[in-house]
């Protein structure tokens, strides 16, 4: 018998990691759960929507908001009392109560349980040491370099020893993973208590005008730790007043509206639950290859790249930098480099597959139709030519690439100087 928290999983196990195994280094991310959404929804009415009313003397007063769960002693001794000295409720008043919790969310929101999800990939702190060892920038005098300069790939643009644009190549990356979030749906009922129809109208107008999307009746609610959700309000606002029976009842106007919030649980911090947030570092790649050439310019797209590899350099990007854009035939890491200030990605001629590594016995990936332009010398004539090659097949498992020569262009010395 086990739960998600104590499922045993050993090294090499091929089963899905549910997020709480012993692998990886534990790190922390803010938790998010039911209470955070309750608080965010409460704050929507308490802080974001300015629910006020005008008293007889013209004083503008904030309407108290109560989450209907309080203990007697706490409700009766609030700093801002909601009862007068005789114990009667002071209205206008807005009460919020959570009326339900559904363990599933809309299928358009809820994601499947894939064990863990990667939420962030970034360069490891050890990457700087590694880059120095492999001399990725082709510095002349590096004692610790394990490779000779002439065997290195072309470096990024440099000026005066400074790198002008980020260059993401082979490196040590760390990936932060969390267990698949648990999605759920919360329903709330908001009741507006007023003595006057005018006050009721004012508050309802205020709420109806404050939707982000007027037609969909939605508001964005945000937790203190930065997670945000969408509160969707039902179209119907029910009215419960005592106008028909004022013989026995006091005159009170109550309007009720319902709202639903689709939320999720991330990294719950409760006694007995281990942290599910892990930091995994990529293995150092050792590659035996000869690289000679420059890639075509990376395609820019129109859609924001949501893949985490596109956001590796987010921490050095400025607000003026473009966001990583997704396009067919472009790699997320190249987009990340461009978004972080790169003028043009000058990567290697290795075709868009970063997984070529020694000892990789994983699945063989194949990529076709990527175009590489290589500048070389004709072995027979000794003349400089530009040969455009088309990759037909790249196999990780066998370390082979099948290229097809599709165009050959002879270059003069002037052409070469202009490059």
């Amino acid at each position, binding site marked *: 018998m086990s739960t998600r928290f104590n499922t045993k999983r050993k090294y090499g196990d091929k089963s899905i990691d549910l997020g709480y195994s012993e692998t990886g280094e534990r790190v922390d991310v803010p938790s998010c759960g039911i*209470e955070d959404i*309750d*608080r965010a929804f*409460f704050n929507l009415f308490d802080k974001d929507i300015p629910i006020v009313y005008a008293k007889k003397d013209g004083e503008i007063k904030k309407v108290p908001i*109560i*989450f209907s*769960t*309080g*203990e*007697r*002693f*706490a*409700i*009766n*001794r*609030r700093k801002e009392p909601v009862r007068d000295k005789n114990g009667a409720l002071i209205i206008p008043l807005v009460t919020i109560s959570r009326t339900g919790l559904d363990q599933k969310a809309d299928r358009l929101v809820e994601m499947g349980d894939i064990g863990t999800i990667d939420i962030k990939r970034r360069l490891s702190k050890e990457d700087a040491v590694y880059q120095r060892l492999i001399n990725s920038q082709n510095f002349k005098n590096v004692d610790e370099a394990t490779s000779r300069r002439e065997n290195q790939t072309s470096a990024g643009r440099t000026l005066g020893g400074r790198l002008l644009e980020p260059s993401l190549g082979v490196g040590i990356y760390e990936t932060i993973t969390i267990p698949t979030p648990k999605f759920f749906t919360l329903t709330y009922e908001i009741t507006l208590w007023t003595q006057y129809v005018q006050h009721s109208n004012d508050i309802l107008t205020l709420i109806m005008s404050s939707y982000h999307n007027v037609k969909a009746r939605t508001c964005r609610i945000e937790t203190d730790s930065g997670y945000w959700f969408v509160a969707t309000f039902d179209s119907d606002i029910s009215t419960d007043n005592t106008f028909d029976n004022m013989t026995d009842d006091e005159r009170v106007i109550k309007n009720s509206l319902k709202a639903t919030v689709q939320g999720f649980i991330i990294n719950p911090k409760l006694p007995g639950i281990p942290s599910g947030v892990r930091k995994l570092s990529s293995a150092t790649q050792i590659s035996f290859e000869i690289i000679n050439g420059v890639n075509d310019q990376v395609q820019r797209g129109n859609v924001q790249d949501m893949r985490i590899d596109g956001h590796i350099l987010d921490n050095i990007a400025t607000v003026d930098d473009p966001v990583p854009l997704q396009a067919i035939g472009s790699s997320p890491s190249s987009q990340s480099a461009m978004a972080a200030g790169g003028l043009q990605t000058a990567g290697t001629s290795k075709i868009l597959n970063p997984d070529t590594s020694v000892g990789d016995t994983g699945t063989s990936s194949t990529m076709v139709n990527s175009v590489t332009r290589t500048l070389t010398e004709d072995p027979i004539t000794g003349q400089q030519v530009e040969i455009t090659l088309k990759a037909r097949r790249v196999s990780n498992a066998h370390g082979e690439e099948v290229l097809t020569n599709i165009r050959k262009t002879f270059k003069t010395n002037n052409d070469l100087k202009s490059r």
Partner: protein
Amino acid sequence: MARLFITPREIDFISDLNKEIVKDIIGQKIYYYPVRADITSIHDIYEESIEKIFDPPVEIDALVDWSPAEIKTNKFGTDKFHNIEVRVHARDLSDKNFRMKMGDFISYGSIFFELTQVNTVSKIFGQVEHVTGYKLTGKQAREGLIDKKPLGPQALTYDTEPVVQEQFVQQRGAEQNDLGPTNDRRELQADGKLDTPLTGPKKVTNDGVSSSFYGDE
């Protein structure tokens, strides 16, 4: 009744008579646990506190209307739940500058109760500023709501021996009796309308024979 005939002296007289019945004859006590909402950590959204901070308990003379527990039995077993109604003397509370509030806790015997209602019992001869006392309605507080060691006499339970009150001592307006300071005040004595009782507070001990009432002292 007209204010012409019910003067402040009558009000004091009625008050002292009731104090005498409650404090010097009946002798029931409750222990009142005020919650310190100002220093208790209260959840800002749910307005609840798992760990409440209390002022020291206050011993209060009272008339306790004891009712047997309500026992509910279902597929999970039995659930025994007590309710209580207590009446306290209004003037006695104001003498001690003490105010009771809903949400505070009381104990009677070994059971703790949360006050769900604090209501005025009646006005003295229709004079709105004078009330006879307060009726406290309490619901049993389960473990976790308040975790204090009960004070005072306690009945026999499954796992505890009964705690018997060793002695009962009257107060009779004296500043001190055998049990210590009384905080008792009788208005007619304080105003010089009545003399202090010559024989002082009487007491009853638990040896079965010694009682001031029977002249055993």
